[in-house]
């Protein structure tokens, strides 16, 4: 069983806004696999470049919307790939991260990679359904 999770608000449909050939999230095997989340406005889809803090905040709020619409939540995160444009800002990411996943945080790998459109942060997450 493989269920596609449609975007709960139009801005989170990156396929429609940017031609990214992907679904926001897919549920299978009791897990929800989310496409890499970036700082876009959940209503308009507009890119919201900012600081590591502002982008991370927007990303977590978007993930909250997406996961809750699929019957999951940030408390049910299992694995996170925290992608950052430069490890030098790791501590900034971490400060906000621990605010959103305070208890029993998921497994995490931090990766410094090149993110689309010059964004500073992207979160690639898997959650329990």
């Amino acid at each position, binding site marked *: 069983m493989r269920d596609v999770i449609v975007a709960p608000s139009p801005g989170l449909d990156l396929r429609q806004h940017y031609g990214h050939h992907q679904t926001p999230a897919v549920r*299978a095997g009791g897990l929800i696999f989310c*496409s*890499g989340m970036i700082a876009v406005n959940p209503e308009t889809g507009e890119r919201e470049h900012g600081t590591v803090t502002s982008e991370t905040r927007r990303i977590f709020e978007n993930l909250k919307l997406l996961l809750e619409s699929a019957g999951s939540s940030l408390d049910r995160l299992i694995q996170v790939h925290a992608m950052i444009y430069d490890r030098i800002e790791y501590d900034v990411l971490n400060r906000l991260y621990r605010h959103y996943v305070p208890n029993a945080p998921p497994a995490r790998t931090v990766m410094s*990679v090149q993110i*689309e459109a010059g964004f500073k942060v*992207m979160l690639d997450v898997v959650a329990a359904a």
Partner: protein
Amino acid sequence: MAAQTRQILTSMARLLESAGSSLTKVVKVNVLIYSMLEYNNMNEVYREFFPVDPPARTACGARLSGGSKVEIECVALA
């Protein structure tokens, strides 16, 4: 980029089928590209392989080995 993407996804399809799965059962794809400047070249070929209800995907730029321009991993239903 387009040629490598096509070759990779063709091989992936074959690999999945030999395991009793298929591209339609792919749930999540992670794409590593040597440069995000070539994202569109990858995306245009990629869309041919997942015509209906594409899987979730994360793509980012990373340093790859052996002169590869792209590397793709996936999770699929058995």
